[in-house]
């Protein structure tokens, strides 16, 4: 299993994404993994580090219909889900679908909206359908939400509650670009101009195939042993208020499979679990001190569980 046997569409998508978002190859790969594992993605970082660009880039490269909502504190659920208006010509109500009816919904600064609006979106994420005025309408397939949020310590935000954070498969940070990446950014100007020029790398149905392949990556009993030990360790560890839930364990497995798949491997290794664990666990584990677990906490956790 030489390291260059990444499935070619995956390789292409990642290469193209990394040409736009410089120096963040781990984060773009995690983002892709999240979509391959049929999960929603939460990107948390300061404004201006390229959250929106990443979401937008992925949507274009995968050939998905894309819509974007900038969340604000005065936004109402109808602004996302859609609204029925009276059509005089047909003298009946006509449903105007909101931005949620897209394959990739970029929910920008989701923690600026009020909890009511947030929960409207999160319901749609969970159910894959929208119910307004007694009528249920299915959302497109696939349907992904890529939400971004500013660190909740910033003023004027409504932090997402634990139960809603749990609906995001992965949460990633972007962080500042390194020196070289920032230099090329400064030299070549902002990245948003490049977005319209990006061509889709996948045809219709191809992404669904990739998802099926990712879900079929082999998992051995030894790997499950290890994964369970890790999850149990979060439950035993005194530093965390709660451990990871069974749903989180499923998420961890799905993400690790996708990570192995994007690495061109037909089986999941402990390394894959370790690679996705921070993105899976950090927003789900709260420390006794009140803050969410940071990268160091997860590293310690990994070090505390020996490979049998």
């Amino acid at each position, binding site marked *: *299993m030489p390291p260059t046997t990444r499935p070619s569409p995956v390789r292409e998508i990642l290469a193209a994404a990394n040409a736009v978002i410089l120096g963040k190859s781990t984060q773009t790969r995690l983002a892709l993994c999240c979509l391959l594992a049929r999960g929603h993605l939460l990107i948390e970082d300061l404004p201006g580090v390229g959250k929106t660009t990443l979401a937008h880039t992925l949507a274009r490269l995968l050939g998905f219909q894309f819509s974007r909502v900038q969340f604000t504190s005065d936004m109402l659920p109808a602004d996302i889900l859609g609204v029925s208006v009276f059509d005089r010509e047909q003298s009946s109500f006509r449903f105007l679908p909101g931005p949620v009816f897209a394959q990739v919904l970029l929910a920008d600064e989701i923690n600026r909206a009020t909890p009511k609006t947030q929960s409207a979106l999160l319901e749609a994420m969970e159910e894959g359908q929208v119910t307004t005025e007694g009528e249920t309408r299915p959302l497109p397939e696939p349907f992904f939400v890529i939400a971004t949020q500013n660190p909740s310590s910033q003023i004027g935000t409504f932090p997402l509650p634990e139960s809603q954070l749990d609906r995001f498969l992965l949460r990633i940070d972007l962080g500042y670009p390194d020196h070289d990446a920032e230099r090329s950014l400064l030299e070549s100007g902002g990245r948003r101009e490049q977005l319209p020029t990006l061509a889709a790398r996948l045809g219709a149905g191809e992404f669904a195939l990739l998802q099926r392949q990712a879900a079929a990556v*082999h998992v*051995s*009993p*030894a*790997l499950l042993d290890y994964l369970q030990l890790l999850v149990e360790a979060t439950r035993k560890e*005194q*530093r965390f208020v709660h451990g990871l839930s069974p749903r989180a364990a499923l998420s961890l497995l799905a993400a690790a499979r996708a990570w192995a798949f994007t690495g061109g491997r*037909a*089986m*999941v*290794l*402990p*390394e894959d679990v*370790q690679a996705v664990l921070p993105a899976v666990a950090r927003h789900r584990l709260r420390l*006794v*001190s009140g803050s969410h677990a940071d990268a*160091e906490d997860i590293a*310690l956790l*990994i*070090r*505390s*569980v*020996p*490979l*049998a």
Partner: protein
Amino acid sequence: MRARPPAALEHGAVPWLLVVALATAGPHAEHLPAWLTVLVAAALLWRTWLWHQQQRMPPRWSLALLVIAAVAAIGWQFGSLFGKDAGVAMLVLFMALKPLEMHNRRDALVVIMLGYFLLLTHYFYSQSIPTGLWLLAACTLLTGALLRLHGGAQPVIAIARDAGLLLLQALPFMLLLYLLFPRVTGPLWGLPQDAHAGLSGLPSQMSPGSISNLTLSGAIAFRSRFAGEIPEQADLYWRGPVFDEYDGVTWRASRQHGRSPAPAPVIEARGPAHDYSSILEAHNQRWLLALDVPTRLPPDSSLAATLEAQSREPLRIRSRFSFSSVLDYRVNRMEAPASLQQALTLPPQGNPRTRALASEWQSRPPARIAEAALAMFRQEDFHYTLRPPLLGADAIDEFLFDSRRGFCEHYASAFVFLMRAAGVPARVVAGYQGGELNPVDGYLTVRQSDAHAWAEIWLADEGWLRIDPTAAVAPSRIEQGIVAALPAGEPLPGIIRLDADWMRDLRNRWEAANNTWNQWVLGYNPQRQREVLSRLGWPDPDWRSMTALLAVLCGLALLLVALWTLPGRRRDDPVQRAWQAYCAQLGRRGIVRADWEGPLDFAQRVAREKPELATLTSEAARHYAELRYGEGDGDSDGEPLRRLQQCVQRLPPQRRRRI
């Protein structure tokens, strides 16, 4: 081979190490020169400030200068850099200065190891219960610091719990070592200072004030436990030195007893024997303070002609002795003429009024003479006090006819003088009288404040007969103890005059705990060890078999711990074995796989750090990953396994390590 750069020291771990330095070096301030204490405090404060301000550490040359100056000062102060005090001073100095050059984790480990070592040195100075508790806490702290160093930031409570758990796991080993480690005679650490400091006890000669001064101390002289009933308070005369020579001021033991072996005393028991054992505090004398009169003595001791039990060597450490005594007896009805002569000798001059009084009585039978003297004490205006007036040249005269105020030594001394002047053989006996039962552990506690002096006269039919003139003056001294006998204003030590019941109870408990500690921890000597082991069913252990059993039991305990903590490693999986063998080989070549590190990650790290092994390791890792995590589950005897096993053999032979 290049060494890896040492791991950096986390900022958050520094306070732990500073507290470690404080906890291990701080208590030494008590016996270190003041300048060193100030230096230590300054160095630690400086480091704390540097930590708080996130400042750079002082340059090396300035630290070097500081160390040289401080070491020179220690050498000048102690006259040496070695030996107990100077050595401890050096260690404390290092402990205070090392944090100032603490840059990486290795330095921090040095601080912690130094801390563990410094802990032990506290036992040079004190082996009391508070010291033990303090050191236990400090040991937990050190272990916690070690955990913090390796485990990263965690809540203090979690670290404390883990450290406590680690120490608890050490408990079985501690108990095994305690029980079975072959003991040497004498304390393990050489003599701690508090074994010699303030050794007090009965004086080896008696002049006015020598017993009453001793009475001012509430310190414990000895503690006794009786096998049966405790005798009446008034019968508890613990015999110390016998004084039969008087020079007008001071009573002392005549030299004849020391020199020629006097005939053994003849004791006729007239009552039951009492068995008891005493734990004597060190007093640097030979007498063992047996109850009058001992009939059975502990080994290595003898009974002097004057009936005091004596050990062969002066008592320099706290020791335990068993005796048997009869309280109703006749002794030496046929006394040697030389002894009787000695018991009649007075200085040629002095105390004419007393001699005149005695000559009035001379014609009476000896028993009547003693009664007359006691009647005088009882009927005339004599007082029992700790604060008698000072007496001049004719001390006995002044006491008997003028001041009439005195402590037991005055009464005993005056009585014996009177007897001798009237022709009755008599001598002074010093010792302790009474004792207080500690209900917590059933020991009778005898303190320095119970020190007493009384008299013995010799009658032809009776032998030596104890007469306590103090009892004539202050009967309550003998019946109820010194607190009852002395009026409230007398300067008795507070510890024996506790009024509140709870304070008395607290003191009793504390002393009982100390006694247990002294006997079982400090006094666990070869003899005690043999007793314990024979009670456990091992009649005659020698040090060889004890060591062997110790090794076997420790091994077993380790094995149990291993079985308990390493359940995952017991599985006998050839794939795991082969991979672990490969990793172990790499470990010997200087690159150790962390136990959480996956195979491909490890191979990548090897490629970075040891490029010459990259290809082989990557191959081994791929085989292992395929075998363990791939689809061919359970196919462990196929070709891939053989290839993985071959990787171990294909490793290039080890180069000799450069130093």
